[in-house]
């Protein structure tokens, strides 16, 4: 099946087959990362603009790195230095970027839905690098990619997402990807941050950490933001940690082979014990590395590349049997 999308806006709209195509393409690109010459010429001559209107470290660097590994030229623009601070509208900013002959735009924005809005204005591909509390599709793709590397097929695997779900785009993208991949997903956190509405998306909601963690094979922690406390969504960081922080005792409730994930940035000592973050079950830094390969795959495919051109035959076979 050929890849047909030009934009990557959400994981909600992707099919299972499309998610697996991206993963298979990422496997191929991940191999190139360990070669002595780590660059491939796939996007030579193309210019990608990273328009980051909200702060980001990991995602922005990973997109930057991914584009350079593909031999694309990259221009990065952040909120503070762009004309949006002078009151320029997003439409005008984006149309100018297109007029400057960019071939693709990667956008991070505080307002949910803005990548969709851009995709309707521009003729060039738009990649969502996080829009408000809506989606962060490449994060969901790299997280599920990392889980598959460690666990194989995710069908019926027990995955717990723990923390501030309500305001998390990472949680939403993971929910859409994981449910399509057949995982058994439970969201855990204080009732104010994990409303029951999420059950409509085919996942469970729990406020009891012990039963939720029991025999889970993946626990994904989300950053707890101080602002939420100011808005009275929970009493204090201390109380959060005492109720929901992942520590050694609680980690012992997990499946012995379970992996611990976090999209970063981490609040050590709040949502996770420092020791666990650095422990052998933690795959937090693998997630970051995989983020390059997955974003290479996304940029490559949305620029018009096809999986068959890069995926090795044995990977393609494995992909077919994993379904």
């Amino acid at each position: 099946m050929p890849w047909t999308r030009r934009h990557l806006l959400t994981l909600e709209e992707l099919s299972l087959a499309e998610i697996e195509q991206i993963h298979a393409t990422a496997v191929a690109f991940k191999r190139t990362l360990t070669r002595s010459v780590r660059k491939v010429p796939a996007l030579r001559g193309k210019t990608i603009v990273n328009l980051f209107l909200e702060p980001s470290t990991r995602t922005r660097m990973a997109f930057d790195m991914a584009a350079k590994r593909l031999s694309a030229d990259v221009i990065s623009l952040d909120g503070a230095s762009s004309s949006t601070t002078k009151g320029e509208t997003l439409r005008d900013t984006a149309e100018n970027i297109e007029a400057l002959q960019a071939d693709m735009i990667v956008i991070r924005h505080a307002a949910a839905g803005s990548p969709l809005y851009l995709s309707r204005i521009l003729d060039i591909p738009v990649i969502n690098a996080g829009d408000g509390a809506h989606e962060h599709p490449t994060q969901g793709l790299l997280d599920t990619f990392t889980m598959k590397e460690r666990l194989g097929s995710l069908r019926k695997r027990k995955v717990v997402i723990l923390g501030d779900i309500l305001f998390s785009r990472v949680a939403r993208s993971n929910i859409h990807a994981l449910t399509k991949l057949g995982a058994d997903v439970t969201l855990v956190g204080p009732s104010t941050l994990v409303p029951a509405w999420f059950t409509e998306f085919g996942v469970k909601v729990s406020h009891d950490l012990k039963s939720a963690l029991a025999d889970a094979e993946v626990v994904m922690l989300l950053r707890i933001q101080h602002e939420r406390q100011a808005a009275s969504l929970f009493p204090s960081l201390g109380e959060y940690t005492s109720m929901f922080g992942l520590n050694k005792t609680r980690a012992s409730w997990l499946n012995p082979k379970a992996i611990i994930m976090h999209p970063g940035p981490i609040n050590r000592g709040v949502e996770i014990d420092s020791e666990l973050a650095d422990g052998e079950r933690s795959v937090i830094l693998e997630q970051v590395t995989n983020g390059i390969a997955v974003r290479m795959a996304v940029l490559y495919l949305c620029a018009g590349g096809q999986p068959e051109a890069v995926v090795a035959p044995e990977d393609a076979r494995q992909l077919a049997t994993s379904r």
Partner: protein
Amino acid sequence: MSSLWIKRARIIDPAARRDEVGDLFVRDGRVVASLPSAEKKRARSIDGTGLVACPGLVDIHVHFREPGQTHKETIATGARAAAAGGFTTVVCMPNTSPVADNAGTIQLIKDVVARDAVVRVLPTGCITVGMKGQALAPIGSLKRAGVVAITDDGDCVQSNDLMRRAVEYAKMFDLPVMDHCQDHSMTQGAVMNEGVMSTRLGLRGWPNAAEDLIVARNVILAEYTGAHIHCQHISSRFSVDVIRRAKQRGARITAEATPHHLALTEEALATYDTHFKMNPPLRTEADRRALIDGLRDGTLDIIATDHAPHTDYEKDKEFDYAPNGILGLETALPVTLDVLVRQNRFKLPYVVDLMTRRPAQLLGLAGGTLAAGVDADICVFDPDETWRYDAKCGFSKSSNSPWSGQDLRGRVKYTVVGGRVVFENGRINER
């Protein structure tokens, strides 16, 4: 002044319980029982075959943006949009720039209306100084200057004590207080209804409880003080229930529903289209059904549009940053006919009543009837004509309508204000 003879129309006059095919006569700006035969020959005649002639529609909730935001709408363009929609009387909200919290601004508005408006445009004043919710505006002076109600529409008065004093004070002048029911502490940053859909879209939710709390507050204050409080644009099913029970006890509480809350739900937001962003937000199907039931049993008193013009470039933004509100005047009649008459089997005269006599009565305005001797404010419409609405070609200065480009059924053919035909067959007759 010339006379007018509308022939063989279905005349609906809810005040007189009249619904019959017949002729309607106007002489010297007033409705008359008949014309002398000599004058009949000279009268301008309108063939009303297949058309409905009813009192001119009355909308007690519009934003005409003048003074101060005339890039969105002016009293002249808003009044033209009203005429095109069959409205002969509209009541404009005071959240202009500056806000209408003093007699001078009211006089300015009245002067512009007298100069520019093709329909009757009546002002409201603010409840509080600067619409800031902190101190009472000079309500007595506003009344003397000619406001027909006071409201801080768009900015609900948060202090219960200030609201209590406002309604108590306004009662002395028999001046209704209209309230946009929204508890701000529960709606910080909110841009759509709170629930599954907001969870899916990652947008901040505006829970219906934030409306229900203020509606309940207003019921309690209306009963405590004996004053009349009108709840604007009700959107929540629980609010409908609160009002229903208050009315059973005899509270002086009234309420309105907008055509958009009757016709649309939050499902329309799936693509973050800012033409569906308004305050209060579109809610669920259960809420929509409750509003229709509320209109059916009289819990909700009237239809009002909340006509809220914004320019294309203001609406063309990220969903979070776009302003709230949509146009309403030019689509209100066909949309309401569609939802209430065609989909929900309301009787046409009842719907006409919801848009004419009742809103006029609610604020104690003239109009809303076709009784002999009253000012001839008339709407003549074809209930069945289907037409394509293009907001860009409409009469409002703005075009922010979710119905633009759609086929609507029911079309206004003539609008008569004080005996003068101000709108006919798609054209405004300027003064």
